[in-house]
């Protein structure tokens, strides 16, 4: 079982908290968006505090940083851009997976329609890399800057992320003669106060008629071929880093203490 942690750290100097989380949860693959500085200092802090050797594998993607607790030779990028990094991860004695990490443009800068188009492009790139790899064992993680119900996330031309394992197990859906592969998006079940943990990963309050307050921009999605290796019990939106709360007394995210996003922790049987 390998432990992944994704966190958009909002360009804040949060190395101490990142290291605390990595140690507390024995993180194997640390994926960060909006890191405030070159990851060299973080790498050093990790290796001093966590007690095992983290690496910074080669990548040209400036907005996604991936640090691994195993040798860089087991993970290498195959397709990247300024906001996307797709890597082949092949650990000894285990099957290769594709790890796609993304930080989508914010709604502050992109219209919703542009995000939907970008989702379609992301979906196309993932399918292309799956064809090149010869399998569909793909994990997608990141700050999508969209909620699971938005067109870019749920639409067939986009990421096609459905809310139940049962739906995802159909693997594909055919529309107008074209076949679209599913992702399973477990984040659907994390909305609201019936879910364990906070009601989302990002809180935004605005004086508009439609206001969701809590959003689930930070997500992990898996292809159906990884369903058996992914347990919802091992998916968690974190509200503490050691003894430091990441949320305030009223449950809202404490952006002054840490990031305005909450970290997402999950495990995959690799």
């Amino acid at each position, binding site marked *: 079982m390998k432990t992944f942690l994704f966190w958009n750290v909002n360009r804040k100097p949060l190395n101490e908290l990142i290291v605390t989380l990595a140690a507390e949860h024995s993180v194997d693959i640390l994926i960060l968006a909006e890191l405030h500085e070159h990851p060299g200092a973080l790498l050093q802090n990790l290796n001093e505090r966590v007690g095992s050797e983290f690496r910074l594998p080669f990548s040209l993607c400036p907005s996604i940083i991936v640090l691994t607790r195993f040798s860089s030779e087991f993970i290498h990028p195959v397709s*990247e851009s300024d906001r996307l990094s797709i890597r082949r991860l092949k650990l000894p004695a285990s099957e290769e997976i594709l790890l796609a990490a993304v930080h989508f443009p914010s709604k502050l800068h992109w219209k919703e329609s542009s995000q939907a188009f970008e989702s379609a*492009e992301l979906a196309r790139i993932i399918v292309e890399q799956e064809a090149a790899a010869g399998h569909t064992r793909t994990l997608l993680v990141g700050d999508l800057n969209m909620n699971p119900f938005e067109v870019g996330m749920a639409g067939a031309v986009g990421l096609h992320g459905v809310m139940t394992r049962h739906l995802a197990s159909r693997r594909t859906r055919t529309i107008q003669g074209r076949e679209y592969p599913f992702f399973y998006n477990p984040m659907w079940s994390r909305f609201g106060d019936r879910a364990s943990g906070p009601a989302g990963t990002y809180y935004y309050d605005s004086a508009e008629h439609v206001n969701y307050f809590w959003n689930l921009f930070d997500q992990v999605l898996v292809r159906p071929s990884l369903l058996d290796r992914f347990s919802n019990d091992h998916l968690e939106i974190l509200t503490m880093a050691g003894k430091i709360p990441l949320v305030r007394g009223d449950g809202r995210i404490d952006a002054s203490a840490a990031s305005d996003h909450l970290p997402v922790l999950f495990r995959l049987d690799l």
Partner: protein
Amino acid sequence: MSDTPLDLWATDLGTREITTPLAILRSQASLLAQKTSGMLEGQVETTTRRDGSFVHSFYVVAPALDHYKYGLLSIRHGIGLYPATVYAPNQPELDANSEQELIECLRSALSSDETRRVVDALLAQSRSAVSA
């Protein structure tokens, strides 16, 4: 009555030369291979959206690095070619209303520090891989 059919079309119809965004990108793709002695290649992938628009994505490909691809920018336009929207790193989406405006947008993106960072790094990695 004249036998010549009534011709209401513009006299210069079909004679104007229009360079499509795709052709502009492809020419830059060819130039990248020339400029890097084939160490890097430009690749343009075109997809058609269901709303009838076209998206051309420009990639830098490093053959020596297992064909690693880096997406530099993309252009989206409708059947009328312009306006074309350019999506490039570290920039808001830009609308180019003419061929000349598109060329200027692309010049800015392809000569940017971000593009140099990517191309320089891939060239260095590719040369190391070839000489190893």
